[in-house]
Structures are given as structure tokens and as C-alpha cells.
């Protein structure tokens, strides 16, 4: 590097074309200046030339010469040395200069910034030849255009001496050997030369003592990181790989594996293939072992008794030991199959004599034990409760007590509404029936009878104004004289003239019932016909058309059920044999069927075909009463053993649903004629209104949702509510209580 910089400086000096000084400079003159040459210049300069030689890299001879040349000036003056330097540069750069011709044409030093070998002075094109060849010529060489480069004027000794005296710059004037011109060195050049000579770094700005940055550690580690040498296998071919390859080769040869091309060919050859769709089914057992692994039976963990040093309570006392020995014959009955023993240390524990046997038994267990998966059914209690809609979504239904009908002096046993929903009739233990105006709670009429009124039923025929009243042994047809005047009078006229009965009345019927005309006082009370029975009548019910009605006398044995006809004023006994204590009868709303409830069963008779159609099992001890859904396919039964049963006649002869909502005997049930509602009442003073939706779709079972419980009645003689009836048009319900009141609950 240093030499390169130097060379450049020299070049610049050459360009100045200063008058060249003679090579034979006076040594003496330089003496004054020689003080800047140090004594140990020799070594340094030789070092320099070495580096030069490396750079030039051409012929050895030249460089040798040069070293000689350089070495000589070290004893002589500085200018000489500079010259020799120049020469060495020239020789090194000659081959390059010939190739880079454009630099001359441009006349611009394009390499001013960088050190390259191209920057040699190449104005003289004579090449790398000794300069003395041109000694005898006027020129010293040729420029790029082929013109001669003139030699500078040669001065003789005297001239040069004179110049030395006159020219103050003489000491720094050097001669360019290339062009033969003299160059005056600038101050910088001189300074540079001085620095080189004093063996300092030529660049002034270079800080020799800059802090050292230790890029790599200078400390040498004593021990290597890995001591052991490279393993042998790292430079031996792998035997395993060789084996693997040979195996692959073998497999290929044998045709066990195939190349992609072979596969392609095979695939092309293959056509639609059929396979066994259910093949895996036969392998079920094989797959089960994989998918449904049955774990081996677990062993019991050892307890404290098995310890070598068990707590004393685990050790057998006399009695336990005796017991243990007593079961010698039946060892499987023992609680423990060994006698717990205590040892001071584990060392003292003897060998376990049963070890082999127990291992064997365990193996037998694993081997012989039948294993099956126990399917455990986990049913949440919530899942058992059926999903019922919220009562709020089942509106309308009765929600609050609206009107109380007060006036009866004793328990109200029975109530019924007329078909228009305007009037209510009630029968009571005070031997009266009362007609009420529903909307206002006004008692319109009170009709006295002779006995306790057990049942009142309004005639469903709208053209008739009739109420059937069961009081004592009598059944009375009453015209209440409310509502339509025309209908009332028509009813009266219809019942006035009793039709002539041509048929002879059966003796058995005559003994059971007698139709009588009311007396005048009774007629004024509204009585239109009186049926005198031989036993007490508990229930009456109308057929849907309002002409036939059924009467029950539970004590009447085989004459307990009686069917009467208003238009013909005639009764008949449909049954000849008693089937039990008849509790309730009811007509099917559309078909000619009669439902007869005895204490435990309900029988359905076909009245036209005179045959038993069905027998329903109630599973209860004592049926109280029943009501039929207006559709005719569902039956509600109240029983004295607290149950309300819903029978779906299409479904089964057993109850579809049993509602155990009442605390005591259920006494009445009723369906609403229009809304999907039913109500039940019981002796616990409560009336329960439920949603009972019957779907036309045979696939859907009825939906039953208990909705509301009313407990407004007071209890009287352990009786609560006797009867419950719905308003025929509105979603309102009436309840007849033992406290002598009737209550209306509305929505």
C-alpha cells in the first residue's frame, strides 16, 4: 500500500514537467539535507522493495537489479532513490500500460482516486527497455502518436553547479527517467519522503496508537473442546445403509416392491373390482379386540392387614383366629385369606408360601375370566320428567275467583249450566235447587224438592227448557222458566199431554220406576214429570240429543241402571245382570254407547247392538265419577283413592295417564266443551284446572298439563268440593262446595 501511494505522488510530480536534474547529483550538497535519512534506512527500504517485487511479480532479475539500485541510494542522496523507485514501478507496470490505451486519449487521470497499476506513466511507449539504449539519440522515446520525445537539454557540470547555486529549488528537483524532464517535488512529496525515510507511516492522519479492538480472542485455549478424535464411522461407508440398499434392491428384484412406472402399468391393467361390502362384519370379533378393549380385571390393593407390621387391631385375637380356623373347609368364606402377622422388620418376613399358587390363580383369572362390557345406563332424573309447555302458553284458562254464588243453606252437591252460558243450576243438601244468573251471581229461582238433591242436569236440547233433578228416590223433570219464553211454553205443552203408551210396560220396569204427573203445587214449582224409583237415585245423565236419559240407583242390584225417554215417558232396564256397584253412567256424545262405571271397571256397551264393547281397567279401588271428552275418545275418571285417570279409548284399556294431584278423594271431573281444558275437584277443597289437548292426529297422544289449583272453598264435614263444571262458552269453571257456595273462576 505504502509504495502505491508513493508512486502516485511521483506521477503527479512527473506531470508537472519540471526541468529534470541530472542523475549525477552532488553528494555534498545533499549532506545538509541528509540529516533526514536515518541510519537504519537500509532495512526498511529493502522491506519496501520486497513488497514491490511481490506486486510486480514479473522477472526476478529486474527486481534484483532494483534492490541493488535501491540499496545503493540508501548510501547516496534521496533523489536517486526516488528515481530508482520510479523505475521499479515502471518495469512492473509496463505490460498493463500497453493494454490501457484510452487513458492517454482522454488526458484525464481517471484513476486519481484509486491505486491501480494502470496509472503508470505511459507517455513514453518504448516499453520495458534499458534507457541507455537511447543515450546516443536526440530523443528518449516515442509518444502515443509516434512522435519523438525530445531529450531535455543536457547540462554540463558547470551548468548544473550554477543552477545548484542559483536555483533554491534545486535540491528538490528530480529528473523523470521516462521523459528526461526535471520535476520539482512539492512540499507534500518531500514530507512524505521524509516520513518514509524516518520509518514512519506515510499517512499523517493515521493514528498508530488507536485503541485495539480485539475482534477475536487473543488467548489461546490450553485444552481442545472435544478431546476424542473423529469416530471411525465418520470416514467409513455405512454398513446399515448398504444393507438397506441391498434389501431394497432385493425387494425390487423379487418384485415385492414396485417402481412408480410398474404401479402405473398395474393400475392400467386393473379394471373395476368388486369387493365384499359386509366383509368387515365377519371380522367383528377381531376388530372388537382392537376398538373395544376390555381391560383385565383389577386386583384389590393390599390393605393394612397385608402389612408386615400391621396395627394391632388388624391382628387376629383368639376368637377371630378360631373363626378363621373353623372355616378351614370353606376358605372362600373367610374375610381374609391369610392370618395377619407382625414382624419387627421387613428382613424377618419369611417367604410367602402361597405366592406361586396366587400367581397361578391370577393368571387363571386373566385367562379364564369371562369378559363382557357392562353397559351402564345413566339417566338423569330431569330426563324422566316429560317436557311440558309452560302454562303461560296455554292461555286461556281460569286464573282467579270472580264470583261467589251464595244462598244455599247446605252443601251444594251438584251444578250444571244451561247451553247458552247464561244460567246455572245447583242442587243442594238443603233439598232445593237454585237457578242463578251467571254474570251477576243473582239467584233467579229456588225450587224446593222433598229430599237431598244429588244430581241436576240441564237438558242439552236447546229446544227444551228442562232440568233433570235427582232428589231422593225421585227423578224430577223441572222446567225452570228462565230464558226463552217460547221454549218454556213449548216444553210445558210438550210435557203436558202424556202420550198414550200402547206397549205394555214390563213388570220388572214397573216395579222399578213409575212416571207420575205432578200435583198442582208441584206444577207451579216447575215440576213437569216425576219418576218414582224404588231405591235412591244418585246420578242422572242426558243423552246428547236430550231425549233419553240414564238414571242410577247403586243399590238397585240388577236394576241399578235405567234409561228413560222424555218424549215417550217410558223407562227401560238395559241390563239384566248386576256387574257390580254402579257408580256412574254416561252417554257417548256421538255414538250409541253407554259407559257404565262400577267400583273398579268401566264397561262400554253398544246400546243398539246390545253388546259389551270394551272394559276399561281403572286400577283403583273405587270410582267416583267420570266425564267424556266432547270428541268421544277420551274419558276422565275420578276415583275416591285420590286419582284422576285419563283413558284414551283408542290407546288401551288401561289409563293413559294417572294424575295424583289431589290429597284426598277426587269427587268430580269435567271437560270443557270448547277449550282444551279439564278440571277436577276433591275433598281437599281444591279445584285443579288442567290443559288436556286431544289431537286429531292419531299419532299424537293427548297432552296433559296441570295448570292451576284453586283452594277457595271451606271444608265442611270433611267434604271439600263436590262438583266442577265448565262454562259452556267461556273458559270459566264453576265449583260446588260443601260450604254451600258455588264459585266461578274466570280467566
Amino acid at each position, binding site marked *: 500500500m505504502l509504495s502505491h501511494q508513493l508512486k502516485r505522488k511521483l506521477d503527479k510530480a512527473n506531470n508537472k514537467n519540471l526541468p529534470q536534474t541530472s542523475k549525477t547529483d552532488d553528494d555534498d550538497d545533499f549532506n545538509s539535507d541528509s540529516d533526514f535519512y536515518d541510519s537504519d534506512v537500509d532495512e526498511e527500504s529493502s522491506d519496501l522493495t520486497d513488497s514491490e517485487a511481490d506486486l510486480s511479480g514479473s522477472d526476478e532479475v529486474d527486481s534484483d537489479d532494483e534492490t541493488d539500485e535501491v540499496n545503493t541510494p540508501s548510501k547516496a542522496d534521496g533523489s536517486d532513490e526516488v528515481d530508482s523507485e520510479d523505475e521499479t514501478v515502471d518495469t512492473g507496470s509496463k505490460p498493463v500500460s500497453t493494454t490501457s490505451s484510452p487513458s492517454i486519449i482522454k488526458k484525464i487521470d481517471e484513476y486519481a482516486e484509486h491505486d491501480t497499476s494502470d496509472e503508470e506513466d505511459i507517455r513514453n511507449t518504448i516499453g520495458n527497455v534499458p534507457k541507455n539504449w537511447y543515450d546516443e539519440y536526440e530523443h528518449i522515446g516515442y509518444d502515443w502518436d509516434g512522435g519523438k520525445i525530445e531529450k531535455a537539454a543536457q547540462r554540463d557540470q558547470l551548468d548544473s553547479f550554477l543552477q545548484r547555486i542559483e536555483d533554491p529549488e534545486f535540491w528538490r528537483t528530480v529528473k523523470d527517467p521516462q521523459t528526461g524532464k526535471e520535476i520539482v517535488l512539492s512540499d507534500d512529496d518531500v514530507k512524505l519522503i521524509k516520513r518514509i525515510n524516518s520509518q514512519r507511516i506515510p499517512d499523517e492522519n493515521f493514528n498508530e496508537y488507536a485503541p485495539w479492538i480485539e475482534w477475536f480472542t487473543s488467548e489461546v485455549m490450553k485444552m481442545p473442546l472435544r478431546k476424542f478424535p473423529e469416530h471411525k464411522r465418520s470416514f467409513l461407508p455405512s454398513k446399515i445403509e448398504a444393507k438397506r440398499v441391498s434389501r431394497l434392491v432385493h425387494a425390487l428384484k423379487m418384485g415385492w416392491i414396485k417402481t412408480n412406472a410398474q404401479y402405473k402399468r398395474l393400475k392400467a391393467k386393473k379394471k373395476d373390482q368388486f369387493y365384499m361390502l359386509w366383509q368387515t362384519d365377519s371380522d367383528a370379533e377381531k376388530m372388537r379386540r382392537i376398538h373395544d378393549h376390555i381391560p383385565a380385571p383389577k386386583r384389590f390393593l393390599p390393605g393394612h392387614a397385608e402389612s408386615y407390621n400391621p396395627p394391632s387391631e388388624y391382628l387376629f385375637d383368639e376368637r377371630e383366629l378360631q373363626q378363621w380356623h373353623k372355616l378351614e373347609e370353606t376358605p372362600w368364606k373367610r374375610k381374609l385369606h391369610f392370618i395377619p402377622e407382625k414382624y419387627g422388620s421387613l428382613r424377618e418376613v419369611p417367604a410367602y408360601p402361597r405366592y406361586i399358587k396366587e400367581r397361578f390363580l391370577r393368571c387363571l383369572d386373566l385367562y379364564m375370566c369371562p369378559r363382557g362390557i357392562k353397559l351402564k345406563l345413566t339417566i338423569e332424573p330431569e330426563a324422566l320428567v316429560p317436557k311440558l309447555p309452560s302454562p303461560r302458553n296455554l292461555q286461556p284458562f281460569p286464573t282467579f275467583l270472580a264470583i261467589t254464588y251464595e244462598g244455599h243453606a247446605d252443601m251444594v252437591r251438584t251444578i250444571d249450566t244451561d247451553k247458552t*252460558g247464561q244460567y246455572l243450576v245447583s242442587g243442594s243438601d238443603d233439598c232445593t235447587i237454585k237457578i242463578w244468573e251467571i254474570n251477576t251471581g243473582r239467584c233467579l229461582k229456588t225450587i224446593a224438592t222433598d229430599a237431598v238433591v244429588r244430581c241436576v242436569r240441564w237438558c242439552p236440547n236447546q229446544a227444551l227448557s228442562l232440568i233433570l233433578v235427582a232428589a231422593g228416590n225421585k227423578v224430577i223433570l223441572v222446567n225452570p222458566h228462565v230464558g*226463552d219464553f217460547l221454549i218454556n211454553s213449548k216444553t210445558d205443552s210438550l210435557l203436558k199431554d202424556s202420550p198414550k203408551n200402547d206397549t205394555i210396560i214390563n213388570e220388572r220396569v214397573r216395579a222399578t220406576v213409575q212416571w207420575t204427573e205432578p200435583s198442582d203445587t208441584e206444577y207451579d214449582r216447575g215440576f213437569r214429570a216425576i219418576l218414582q224409583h224404588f231405591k235412591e237415585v244418585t246420578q242422572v245423565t242426558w243423552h246428547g240429543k236430550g231425549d233419553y236419559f240414564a238414571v242410577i240407583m247403586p243399590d238397585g242390584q240388577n236394576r241399578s241402571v235405567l234409561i228413560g225417554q222424555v218424549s215417550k215417558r217410558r223407562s227401560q232396564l238395559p241390563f239384566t245382570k248386576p256387574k257390580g256397584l254402579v257408580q256412574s253412567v254416561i252417554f257417548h256424545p256421538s255414538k250409541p254407547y253407554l259407559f257404565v262405571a262400577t267400583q273398579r271397571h268401566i264397561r262400554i256397551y253398544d246400546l243398539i247392538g246390545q253388546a259389551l264393547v270394551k272394559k276399561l281397567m281403572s286400577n283403583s279401588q273405587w270410582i267416583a265419577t267420570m266425564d267424556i271428552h266432547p270428541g268421544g275418545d277420551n274419558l276422565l275418571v275420578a276415583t275416591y283413592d285420590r286419582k284422576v285417570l285419563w283413558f284414551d279409548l283408542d290407546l288401551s284399556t288401561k289409563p293413559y295417564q294417572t294424575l295424583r294431584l289431589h290429597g284426598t278423594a277426587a269427587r268430580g271431573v269435567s271437560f270443557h266443551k270448547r277449550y282444551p281444558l279439564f278440571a277436577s275437584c276433591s275433598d281437599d277443597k281444591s279445584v285443579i284446572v288442567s290443559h288436556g289437548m286431544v289431537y286429531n292426529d292419531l299419532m299424537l297422544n293427548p297432552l296433559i298439563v296441570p295448570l292451576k289449583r284453586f283452594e277457595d272453598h271451606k271444608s265442611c264435614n270433611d267434604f271439600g268440593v263436590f262438583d266442577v263444571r265448565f262454562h259452556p262458552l267461556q273458559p270459566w269453571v264453576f265449583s260446588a262446595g260443601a260450604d254451600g257456595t258455588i264459585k266461578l273462576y274466570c280467566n
Partner: protein
Amino acid sequence: MDTGDSGPQLEICFITKQDIYAVPSVPFSVPQDINNVHLNKLLNELLRDYTGQLKQVQFDFLVNGQILRLPLVDHLKDFNVSTETTIDVEYIERTEAPEPENALLHDDWIGGVQVADKWVLTGCYDHSVNIWTVHGKHESMSQEHTNMVKSVSWLKQSDPEGGFVTVSHDLTGMLWTWRPGDILPLPVIMLRGHSRAIDSVGVSPNSERLATGGCDTHLKVWSASVDVDDNYEPRPKKIKPNTHLPSRTPIHTLQGHKENIVSVQWLEPQLICTASMDHTIKLWDTELGGLQSEIVAEKAFLDASWSHLCRSIIACSADRHIRLYDPRSTEGSVCKMIFTSHSLWVSAITWSQTDDHLFMSGSYDECVKLWDTRCPKAPLYDLSGHQGKVLCVDWSNPKHLVSGGTDNSLHIFKNRHGN
């Protein structure tokens, strides 16, 4: 104004439509939990300052169209109104409490009542028709009907001498003439045609027609003329108890209801409003003889009343609520408001004839209540006194609020408001 100085404040501005009580509309800062008592005090002080009026006047305050009953901030919270802005508080003179004036004791339940001028006409369940003065003097009585009288109406509101009409459960209605001073009202014409009990009667505004409805679900329109010559048909041959009376048959029979018609009222000379227990209110056009429109509800109606002033129907059903219907609205719910305070069925209801906000209702819970439509949460006043179900109420004479019930007594309250 010194109305309390602690707590958050609200800006209010008093406005009124009653010019005599006007105060400058300057915003005031009041505590936010101010109630109507304090507002009253504040307003009265203001009035004394501005108008020099010394008499204390009781006001009611309307905020957002509803009468203030709660502390102001709670009231605003109910309406989700911002408390940041100035709140317009409209004030109106408070409706004064009606004061009990008289109780007229009858022999039986009172089914219907109507007042014209000072004459009170009542129909009783003992088949009698009575005329009283509002001061409690029994003027006359007749028992021509053979069953309980359910509804009565004067033919001319202004003039009792124009006669009256009664309808009864004996399937007939009767037109009567009566002059003040007569001991017996004179039955003139019998209205025959209903096949079941008649429950309600209404007289047209021009007193030319009347309409009856009853349990046979038919609405029948009759001529209201008391002139016997207006007989449209010869007397039926059938022997009736009241054979001496000429009978009249209906001009129209309008069918459409499915159940008992409980209320009949004429809106216009050709428009009848009926409420029925089949859950509907129907408007009938007598000119065309057909149904004009209907309102279908959830519950059976027990009574309804139409107001000419606010042109809406107030109706009570077989539940505890009173509902306000706007028959003109076609979209959304026709039920505009629900008034709930009664504990049992509300059986009778009527609008005020002079105020478009006031109405009175009678219920089976033995209570008569005076309501303001701007105060739906609670009635203005409870008119107590009945000891049985209230079956009928009347406010035809703006000065008297009349109600009758199952305690056989007719209670007359004097209305002091607006006189």
C-alpha cells in the same frame, strides 16, 4: 324559590292551557325528587306573585302526557326521558273529588240507571221501574215488566217528558211516557221481537231510533217514537200478559254476535256500537244494515262506552282491567291503554259527557272509581259506599255520578269539577 337545596336538580318549565292560571314560562331548577305536593306549593306561590291570586288552587301536573303521581325523576324514568333537558310540566286544575250526595234505597238490585236533568231513572231486579230526583225523592214507580229490568234509558237526554225506554229479561222492552209529577209512568208501546232476555238498550242521538241487544245475540233497531200510530205491524195474536199494550216490532235485526250483547250505544245517527260476551266490539251501520268494523279482544266484554269528545271506546271485560280502544286505528293493537285497579270484574263503565279524559267504572269489588286517561296506573278517586257488586253506573248528567248495585242502593255523587 326555596324548594330544597340538596341533591341533583332538574330544570322544569311550567306551561298550561288554562289562561287564568298562566305563569311566565321561565325554567326553574327543582330537586329531582319533587312530587306534585311541592310542585303545587311552588306553583301557587308563583301564581300569587304574578297574578296576585290569593286562593290556593290544587293542580295536577302532566309530564309526558301523564299525570304526575310519583316523584318527578321516577316518573321520567318510566318514560325513559332524559333528565338533562328542560322538562315541560303542564298543569291543569285538579279534578275535585266527587262528594257523596245521596243514597237511594230500592227494594232489589238495580240493573240500570240513567239520569236526565234532575230525574234519575232506575230499573230494578224486582221488575220495577223507578224515577227519583237526584235529591232523593221517589217520584214514581211501575211494575209493568214481568222480569228483572236490565237497562233503562231516557229518550231525550234534555227533556224527561220525552219518555223513556226500559228493557227486561221478560224478552220485551217498553216505551214509557212520564211527566214530572206523575205517580205512575205510562207504558205506551211494548217492543217485542227478542227471543231471549234483553240486556242493553241505546237511544240514538236524535232520539228517533233505539237499539236493543240481548242474550239471543241479535241487535234490534226500533223506532223510538212514543206515538202509538207508528205501529208497523198488527198486534200478534198470541196471548201475552200485557195484552192491553200495543206492541212494536224491530225495523232491523242485525245478526253477527255469537253471544250475549251487553252494551249498545249509538255513535252517530246511523252508527251503533255493541259490545258482546263473544269477545268482540262491533260497529254497525244501520243505514246499510250491516257490520262496519269490529274489535276482537281476548276476554268477554261486560260493558263499553263511547266518548264523542275523544272518539274512543272504553270497555271492561270479565277480568280486572279496563281497556281503551280506538276504533279508527287499523294498525297494530287497537287497545291503546289498560287501566288496572279493580280487583274483580268491572261490570259498568261510562265516559264523562264534558271532559274527554274522565270516565267512571263500577266493579264487582264494590267499588266505583273515577279515572283520568292520563293517569293509567291509579284512579283519581275511589267512590266508596257500595256494599255489594256495582251493576250499573251513569254520568249522563255531568253534575252527578250515579251508580247502582246489588246492595239495592243507588249512590249519587256530586261532581264538583268543572262546575
